[in-house]
């Protein structure tokens, strides 16, 4: 699930991930994910793919918060914008699946450019408040019915046909859950790989420097606001991409995806899993969706349980469930 350097020789970053997962771990995980759909029934395949989509959404928050230090509650706007861009690409421009995904990313980034410009100019807790208020503004506009001239009917339109994935001369249909599974998982993996390269690039390191000590980063000549803005827009693109994958997988889009409580979901999933890494949000999402799937039969308000676990994680394991697990593995591995 994680792209990891083959020679894990970069412990200086403090990202234990590089130290913990050797190449074999990654290969094992990849093999497991390839085999998994053959072991579970049809319905579960889509469910696993859904975990990946929401996990990517949670990861977009983890990038903004864990690497950029920005507690953003606007991720849902970009997820929704991704769904919207996807619908626009599909129905208005008549793109195929690839084109629609690209237009989703572009739509989310176009949303993020002005929002990020306003939000990244303010600091500290203002950032959170600004993202909440902007989300409320967007949802209020879309909810009010005034958006019809602005956005056309594309905000809530769902796919009415089974999507196809054209690959050169062959074309795969989402009619098969296998295709849906492999397409989604591979697309998510690609996004994770790109994000991994990004946060380990000089750009990502500059952001870590800003997160840890902004004054110092400014003094060594980094354009703090601009870098934060770029990071915000890229993370928005990832959120929009996950929105497009969701629209493909579930063939369903809804206005509620824009609401800031959906961002809150991403926050909860990412924090439970751990935000210091890219894999943590997926762990948190798997935890959240699995408990939703299997606990809500017995305990309707399972969200109360999730809330309590969130509080416990913050209190006792601030680096999340994945951090706990990795720490435990590492304690067994001292040379």
């Amino acid at each position, binding site marked *: 699930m994680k792209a990891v350097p083959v020679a894990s020789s970069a412990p200086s970053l403090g990202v234990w991930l590089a130290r913990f997962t050797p190449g074999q771990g990654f290969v094992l995980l990849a093999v497991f994910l390839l085999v998994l759909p053959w072991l579970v029934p049809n319905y579960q395949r889509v469910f696993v793919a859904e975990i990946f989509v929401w996990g990517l959404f949670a990861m977009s928050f983890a990038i903004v*918060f864990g690497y950029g230090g920005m507690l953003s509650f606007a991720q849902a706007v970009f997820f929704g914008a991704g769904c919207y861009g996807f619908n626009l690409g599909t129905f208005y421009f008549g793109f195929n699946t690839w084109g629609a995904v690209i237009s989703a990313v572009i739509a989310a980034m176009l949303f993020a450019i002005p929002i990020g410009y306003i939000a990244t100019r303010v600091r500290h807790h203002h950032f959170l408040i*600004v993202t*909440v208020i902007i989300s409320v*503004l967007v949802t209020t506009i879309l909810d*009010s019915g005034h958006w019809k001239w602005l956005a056309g009917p594309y905000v809530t339109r769902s796919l009415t046909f089974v999507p196809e994935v054209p690959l050169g001369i062959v074309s795969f249909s989402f009619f098969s859950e296998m295709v849906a599974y492999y397409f989604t998982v591979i697309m998510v993996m690609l996004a994770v790989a790109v994000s991994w390269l990004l946060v380990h690039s000089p750009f990502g390191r500059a952001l870590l420097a800003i997160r840890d000590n902004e004054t110092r980063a400014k003094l060594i000549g980094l354009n703090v606001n601009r870098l934060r803005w770029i990071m915000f827009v890229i993370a928005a693109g990832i959120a929009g991409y996950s929105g497009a994958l969701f629209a493909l997988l579930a063939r369903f889009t809804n206005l509620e995806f824009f609401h800031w409580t959906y961002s809150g979901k991403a926050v909860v999933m990412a924090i439970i899993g751990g935000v210091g890494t890219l894999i943590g949000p997926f762990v948190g999402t798997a935890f959240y969706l699995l408990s939703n799937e299997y606990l809500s039969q017995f305990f309707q308000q399972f969200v*109360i349980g999730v809330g309590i676990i969130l509080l416990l994680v913050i209190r006792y394991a601030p680096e999340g469930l994945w951090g706990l697990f990795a720490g435990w593995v590492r304690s067994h591995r001292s040379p």
Partner: protein
Amino acid sequence: MPELVVILAINGLIWGLIIALIALGLSIIFGLLDIVNVAHGDFFMVGTVLAWTVISYTGNFWLAFLIVPLIGMLLGCAVERLVIKPIENSPALSIVACFGLSLILQETVRATFGATPKRILDPIGITIPLLGLNYQIYRLFAAAVAIAAIVAFFLFLHKTKFGTWMRAVRQDRETAIALGLPSDRIFLVTFGLGTSMAMLGGVVAAPITSVEFRLGLDVLPLCFMAVIIGGMGNLPGTAAAAVLLAFIEGIITSFTEPTTARIISLVIMSVVLLVRPEGIFARRRT
């Protein structure tokens, strides 16, 4: 038409006073504990639900004014001790913890109180003719209670020893603690007080709004707007901004639909953020 404008403006004013009361609680918690209490709207919601509970069990609405703020104080203190204090060194995680708290509060209310919105009957039940309309006296009473609570809050802050301590910690945390102020107790009381104000706001607002577990989600952004426009940590500014915003929204509502009014005020707010990120009433806090 002009009558309608006046009525809606008055309604806006009253709602603004209630929001001011809630936003002051948010602002004082922000100023002292340095966290944005995302669960603040849900404390307000719990206030309305408790008011409904008090009515349905005792049949007496006025009792709620006594009991609910007390429960708020206790609940706030418990939350501060159990949730906020252990992680006081990382403000960002505290905010996430508050969000977890908000989930817990909402779902608990949904599990116990139910998901369907309920209404509380006008507890005074007398209307006065106002510009050709029958106007509920309770609304005027609600405004009076909100004003009284806000005045009491400022008196507490400026006339009592504890209030002075609170202002001292807000102004310069390190120095205040170094001078030996009991910061633990101050933080505890501050969070309790803020929560209590939100829940009192809930009781006041209960008869003029519907009681529902999602209520907090609507109120929280309004408080955020007041806090941002008024200038973060600027208490009189926050109160003034809340009243002003609701008042203007009330007037705009008389010309267009409520959602358009809300959109206009949100856009105004974004412009304010662009031009003056520290709020329009911002004055140097030090």
